[in-house]
């Protein structure tokens, strides 16, 4: 099983530790994982702003980088959803279709493909889960609160395998954090208010860390936490799942 590791642009540049944790975790689980060096971005920043028509060369580059792999795995639900929903190619639609079918966000790859049932990890902290909307309502990583349907949560399932962890609750289990790509700039006031309210929900329930399968949400929340000199930290789910089994 050959896995192509897709590290989205902003993760590559701003959150290398989450990327390293993803790589190490996949290696620990015995997979053959490679990072194609020439990758850049999924094209979502343009497309969500209404410029999908400018993202064709980005798409073609993505296809070139990842066609050869059996699976593509990325530590970012939002970017994965974008590829799944919007990757197309004038030149080679067959290759694009194949990619849309074999790309996975890390959590779903662990639960649905590798089907792991235990992990050797230790993270003795109180952790709140932030459901990224694209992970939740796009990739169905957990049940959506709006639907009348049985409850499940893939991130929670994985985090429950970690020693010492205490998962904290929320009043609003899957409310959006307000990042929304360029929304965070164009609608600054509402975006920040949404983020502040998510943080309050987590801190009120005693979370020391906020984790998520999506760093874009976490970057926005971290921005607010840093500005307010909060002690609460953000951490990508890969870093918890890859935490050392012995060190606290």
């Amino acid at each position, binding site marked *: 099983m050959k896995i192509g590791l897709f590290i989205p642009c902003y993760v590559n*540049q701003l959150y290398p530790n989450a990327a390293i944790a993803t790589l190490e975790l996949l290696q620990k689980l015995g997979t053959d994982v490679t990072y194609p060096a020439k990758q850049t971005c999924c094209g979502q920043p343009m497309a969500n702003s*209404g410029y999908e028509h400018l993202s064709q060369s980005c798409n073609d580059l993505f296809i070139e980088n990842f066609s050869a792999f059996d699976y593509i795995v990325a530590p970012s639900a939002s970017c994965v959803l974008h590829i799944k929903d919007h990757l197309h190619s004038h030149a080679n639609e067959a290759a694009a279709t194949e990619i849309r079918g074999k790309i996975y966000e890390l959590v779903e790859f662990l639960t649905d493909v590798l089907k792991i049932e235990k992990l050797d990890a230790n993270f003795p902290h109180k952790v709140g889960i932030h459901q990224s*909307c694209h992970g939740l309502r796009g990739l169905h990583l957990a049940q959506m609160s709006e639907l*009348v349907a049985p409850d499940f949560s893939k991130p929670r399932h994985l985090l429950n395998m970690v020693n010492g962890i205490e998962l904290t609750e929320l009043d609003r289990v899957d409310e959006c954090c307000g990042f929304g*790509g360029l929304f965070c700039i164009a609608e*600054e006031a*509402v975006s920040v208010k949404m983020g502040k309210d998510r943080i309050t929900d987590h801190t009120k329930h005693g979370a020391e860390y906020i984790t998520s399968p999506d760093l874009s949400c976490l970057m926005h929340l971290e921005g607010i936490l840093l500005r307010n000199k909060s002690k609460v930290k953000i951490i990508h789910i890969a870093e918890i799942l890859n935490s050392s089994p012995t060190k606290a």
Partner: protein
Amino acid sequence: MKSTLDHATLAEEFNKDEERVDWHDGALWWIRQKRDRSANQTPQWEELREAASAIKSNVISNLHDYLIQFEENLKKNGVKVYWATDAEEHNQIVYSILKEKEIKQMVKSKSMLTEECQLNEYLEDRGIEVINSDLGEYIQQIDNEPPSHIVLPCIHKRKEEIGELFHEHLGTEKGLSDPTLLTRVARKHLSNVFLTRRAALTGVNFAVAETGEYVVCTNEGNADMGAHLSEVQIASMGLEKIIPERKHLGVFLRLLARSAIGQPITIYSSHYKKPRAGQEMHLILVDKGRSDLLARPDFRDSLKCIKCGACMNTCPVYRKSGGLSYHNTISGPIGAILAPNLDMKQHADLPFASTLCGSCTNVCPVKIPIHEQLYKWRQEIVKLGYSANRKTFSMKAMALTLSSPEIYSTAGKTGRWLLNNVPFAINNKFNPWYKQRDMPDSSQQSFGEWYAKNGSKK
């Protein structure tokens, strides 16, 4: 009166009073929770949504035939039928009906369509007084402000503010803000209105093609009061309000009030079919952009909307920006996908007033893929040139960099390309990101650089 400010500006204004935002957000979230409880208590809720969506798909695919059938049955029942292409034509028809009867006062209820058509202003210019009898709309009318929500028109007003309005306009005691007492005062004023108005106009929730009857759903009974006491009864409806058969009401009536406010059914679901002896009934079928929408395959599903407002209550952006920020009669997520069809330039900002979180789509009782349509409207708006040149320029620069690994990695090394180019990350004090947020530490090497050194060793 059309506002020239965009959603972001109006929302920022709304957010200056954070305590008020919290209150507004909390009030609507409470309604969303009521909706959830109610949905969870209803057997086969998701199947009901599916059925409603399928019935509406059938309706919009066969709209022409159903409308003709509906018209024939209306005529058989003794109702006069009119077709209006736009707001102007609709308003002229209402005016001509009233003029012929020399009616100078009309009571109105349950009609967002006539708000869209600005019927009140049109009639007032011609010397006809109109009173909105739904309590929320009545309050908005007194305050000379459009509704901020299609089901809860004055949800953005606190009871103290309503007390102040009543004091000013209806002569209540200063400082009175008890909702029950205020409602009694309004009821007293409105009873007199009902007794003296010769004409009553209502909207339509469901128009049954099979029988030629239409159904109006209210909690206050005001539509009935107006209609029963009038000698001229007028109904205005958008073309999309059709359902094929009466039995389909069993699906829609179960969904409507539960989705809207978590109530099993509206207190009144009134069926109107034939005029009483001595009464006239008129029904106006209004296009106003509906057939244009039908001709847009990517967007026609928005014609399924039954105007429950669930998408507004669940939308965090709506809750934290207020309905009036959308500067359109229909606000929130559904307003943001309906408005560009009517005037893309005026409403070019609305599809961007969303994080595309998708909660709206999940609560929609007729399963309109609202957030997918928001995404598609963004593409349309940009393609047709309603986006700022500056944004287009920066998007082109971004696309160029991201399509070339060489430019990208050089740019990345020379001071983190992202921090200089991606709009939310541009590191200067003019960037709105930094008004209330910081960026993470970016001094470390990128993963790409780390992997080049360490990746192969593993």
